[in-house]
């Protein structure tokens, strides 16, 4: 009869495996392994193992080797492992616990007690795994909502700025690609994938401060006067003020990245940007990346005051320094990704 739960029994002595199998066969599908190597092969292949009863001392790979491997693959988080041993070495048993064994059962064991202990732990793990699954789904949902909210905010700015909603999508996509390329080429700038995803979302809000800039300046067809440009520059600082008014609306990390990008995406590598005149790596790598992406997107898009440049011309202008100075490493990575676009 097929059972819902599966138990893997690992012991080099057949008698021990048979006794355990007999004790659990009414409630579990039984799998057996005669050494650590076989056990790892089964653990790697099967997705339905509810628990492992693991002998400590075995030929080839012993119980501790099995635990080490399960730590390496992360399986130890989801599958409870009971060490069943006749060994007396406190050091080994302690190492077993440190490697994540849920319990240690001494031979000779009382089957009835062992059954209860295994059943309880398997039930707890099932509940925990189920709960983790639910939480993961909720977090995914929360992240989707978060992203929608950020995109909605960005869209409002774009409509005022007479742009289509495509700009934010391009900003986010290109920021993630460039962040990844920069990190892959220059390890000192490497950021974890999960963070890059957040930076991509945060980049969308880089121009949120434009909502506070008067229409006549924001949508002026011609060149801005010095006075008008000074007002326009304020969108970085105004954006931070807007973000400060809604710190709890979005995920904390996305908020922090948004704030930094919003304030510093017009800073330049040589210190000639605004609003703080930061230079070099005093500007965060994400703000530097968004700066390049923002300039590229502005050049290749049509605006009220200019027509769109083709990609090659835009890249050349950026590399020539016509749009201000950027981190040479980012420019190298940027050249590489533009070839692929």
């Amino acid at each position, binding site marked *: 009869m097929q059972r819902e739960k599966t138990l893997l029994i690992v012991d080099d002595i057949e*008698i021990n495996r*048979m*006794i355990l199998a*007999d*004790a659990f066969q009414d409630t579990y599908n039984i799998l057996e392994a005669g050494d650590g190597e076989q056990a790892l092969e089964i653990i790697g292949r099967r997705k339905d193992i509810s628990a492992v009863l693991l002998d400590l*001392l075995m030929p080839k790979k012993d119980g501790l080797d099995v635990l080490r491997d399960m730590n390496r693959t992360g399986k130890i988080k989801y599958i409870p492992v009971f060490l069943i041993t006749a*060994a007396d070495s406190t050091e080994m048993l302690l190492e077993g616990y440190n490697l994540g064994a849920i319990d240690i059962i001494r031979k*000779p064991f009382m089957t*009835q007690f062992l059954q209860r202990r295994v059943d309880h732990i398997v039930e707890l793990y099932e509940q925990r795994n189920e709960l983790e699954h639910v939480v993961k789904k909720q977090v995914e949902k929360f992240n989707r909502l978060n992203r929608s909210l950020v995109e909605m905010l960005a869209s409002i700015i774009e409509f005022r700025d007479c742009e289509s909603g495509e700009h934010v999508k391009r900003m986010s996509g290109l920021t993630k690609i460039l962040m990844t390329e920069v990190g892959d080429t220059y390890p000192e700038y490497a950021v974890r994938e999960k963070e890059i995803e957040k930076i991509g979302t945060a980049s969308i809000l880089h121009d949120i401060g434009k909502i506070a800039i008067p229409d006549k300046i924001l949508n002026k067809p011609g060149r801005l006067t010095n006075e008008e440009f000074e007002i326009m520059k304020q969108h970085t600082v105004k954006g931070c003020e807007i973000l400060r008014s809604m710190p709890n609306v979005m995920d904390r990390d996305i908020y922090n990245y948004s704030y930094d990008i919003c304030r510093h995406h017009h800073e330049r590598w040589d210190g000639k940007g605004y609003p703080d005149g930061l230079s070099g790596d005093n500007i965060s790598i994400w703000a530097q990346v968004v700066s390049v992406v923002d300039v590229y997107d502005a050049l290749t898009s049509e605006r009220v005051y200019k027509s769109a440049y083709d990609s090659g011309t835009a890249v050349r202008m950026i590399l020539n320094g016509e749009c201000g100075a950027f981190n040479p490493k980012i420019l190298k990575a940027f050249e590489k990704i533009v070839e692929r676009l």
Partner: protein
Amino acid sequence: MSLIEELKQLGVNTDEAIERMNGNASFYERMLVKFAGMMKSSIVQPDFDCNQYADITEAAHAIKGASGNLSVTPIYRAYSEIVRLLRAGQPQQAKEVLDAVLPVQRAIIACIEKYS
């Protein structure tokens, strides 16, 4: 007399073992037959090399585990001591314990074989 009765007289805690097997005496008897086979092919013999005995320690440890689960108490106690002595680097003393248990061990194995 039955196998269980005879083993009791040889010091095997058959009641405890059968309880461990959820009261399944016939399953216990099958396990005893396997155990006898395991003991017949055991490399743990009194003439083992006192300078190289890692394999002997491993085999003695296996006997300790299996005999414990089957409550073959005289063998379990002796092999627990043998394993302890071998791990403590006292192979000569381990041999003495092995010599002492061998007659009982042979009697238990012979008894199981008689009924198998």
